């Protein structure tokens, strides 16, 4: 067992009394006070997350944009400078290497924000497939990342980083400064609420956390851990790599069609994804709610008509809705909204129904 890595905020988390867990090889806070309170803070006010465990891979050079265009399921060349896009890195069989956000830094520079568990894999993947002319750099160890999420996040961030961030549209970013250091601030997040993500040098991250924490006090800002991050993203039906996505799952099975340039093609995995679609997907991702008491968890079996038909990939009580929600894979014939399913929870069949996703619509001013 190797010792989990620490983010620049490790000491801060311990001082705040966070319960720490090992997540993707990092010691991360799962909660500070209560997952339910932290969840509510983000939906109603604001929450501050340390997500410095996430990785950043920079690609630069004259061929970099074309290379990323070929790596990503979403269009990259048309992405204007200052814009961010969500997409998938796919493999030749149409499976997902990782789900990432692409930042267009300039005419010849982009960076990918990647999942902590996949940093090594993604770095090797991009290095192998970007071509020799492209400079690929893993900036993950040098960069911290904070997520400020919730309806009050704009007001809080304006006090710390200046009024310019208020005009930022969803999925846009600006370069800013904090105490003389360069920052990159994007109006993005993983909660389904309005919010921002702020990248900066590791050494300055704790300082920014303190400033945001102080500025956020009058707004009821709360530090939030991975527990709330998971319930928030699940309410927003945002996939989590390793649960809804993996190396064998087509992004179309995960219903990520709008992030896949299928007509345009030309990216790694495009042909396989198109072929798998033409053959008919054996399963599709659905959102469901439980109609009885109980909590669906990842790995629980889904049944229909007494037969096992699929598996739950994520499940939790929805703090906003007060019912249990989940995501899971079922055959396409059972993927329509309204379909009756059952979740097998400790040998008991608990009634569930396929519903529209997201489970919770964003209350913030903007949404992708």
């Amino acid at each position, binding site marked *: 067992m190797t010792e989990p890595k620490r983010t620049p905020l490790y000491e801060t988390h311990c001082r705040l009394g966070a319960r720490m867990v090992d997540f993707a090889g990092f010691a991360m806070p*799962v909660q500070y006070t209560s*997952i*339910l309170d932290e969840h509510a803070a983000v939906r109603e006010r604001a929450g501050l997350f340390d997500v410095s465990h996430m990785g950043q891979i920079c690609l630069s050079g004259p061929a970099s944009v074309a290379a990323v265009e070929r790596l990503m399921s979403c269009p990259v060349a048309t992405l204007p400078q200052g814009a961010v896009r969500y997409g998938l890195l796919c493999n030749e069989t149409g499976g997902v290497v990782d789900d990432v956000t692409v930042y267009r830094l300039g005419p010849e520079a982009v960076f990918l924000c990647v999942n902590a568990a996949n940093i090594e894999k993604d770095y090797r993947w991009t290095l192998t497939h970007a071509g020799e002319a492209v400079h690929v750099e893993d900036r993950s160890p040098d960069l911290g990342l904070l997520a400020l999420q919730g309806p009050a996040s704009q007001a809080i961030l304006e006090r710390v980083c200046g009024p310019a961030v208020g005009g930022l549209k969803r999925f846009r970013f600006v370069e800013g400064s904090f105490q003389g250091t360069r920052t990159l601030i994007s109006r993005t997040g993983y909660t389904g609420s309005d919010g921002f993500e702020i990248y900066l040098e590791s050494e300055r991250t704790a300082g920014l956390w303190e400033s945001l924490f102080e500025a956020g006090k009058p707004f009821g800002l709360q530090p939030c851990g991975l*527990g709330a991050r998971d*319930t928030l993203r699940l309410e927003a039906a945002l996939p989590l790599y390793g649960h809804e996505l993996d190396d064998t799952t087509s992004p179309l099975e995960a219903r990520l069609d709008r992030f896949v340039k299928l007509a345009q093609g030309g990216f790694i995995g495009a042909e396989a994804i198109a072929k798998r679609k033409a053959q008919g997907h054996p399963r599709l991702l659905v959102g469901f709610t439980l109609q009885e008491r109980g*909590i669906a968890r990842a790995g629980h079996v889904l049944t229909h008509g007494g037969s096992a038909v699929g598996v739950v990939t994520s499940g*939790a009580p929805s*703090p906003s809705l007060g019912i249990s929600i989940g995501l899971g894979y079922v055959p396409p014939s059972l993927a329509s909204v309204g379909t009756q399913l059952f979740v097998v929870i400790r040998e008991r069949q608990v009634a569930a129904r396929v519903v529209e996703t997201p489970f919770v619509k964003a209350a913030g001013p903007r949404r992708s």
Partner: protein
Amino acid sequence: MADYDIPEDRRYSTEDEWARLEEDRVSVGVTDYAQQQLGDIVFVELPAVGTTVERGEPFGVIESVKAVSDLYAPVSGQVVEVNTDLAEHPEHVNEDCYGDGWMLTIEVEDSTEYDSLLEASAYRRHVAERKG
């Protein structure tokens, strides 16, 4: 570190259940340490009245937002009462684990199992040792 409420008027199992003997009945719940470790309790699954439970064996399940844990019977016997309010209000376990958050009452045949449970001082040491 957090402080844990460990009342003197009852006994404790190493699995973090409390037990309180009144005549031939033992009421059971989880300790303050357990509820703090679990975090927000969102679901409690308890056996039906009339079920027989065995000491050290799971009798139910408690779920927090993130985790599922078994509940272990501190004594053997027949379940004669169940706190049905917890179906609607699992948060009572967080708010009042020694009172409104009680789980069930077990009718015991003899009290020797109860007598062998940890006293408050011993359970306090047990908790402290695990905090590390």
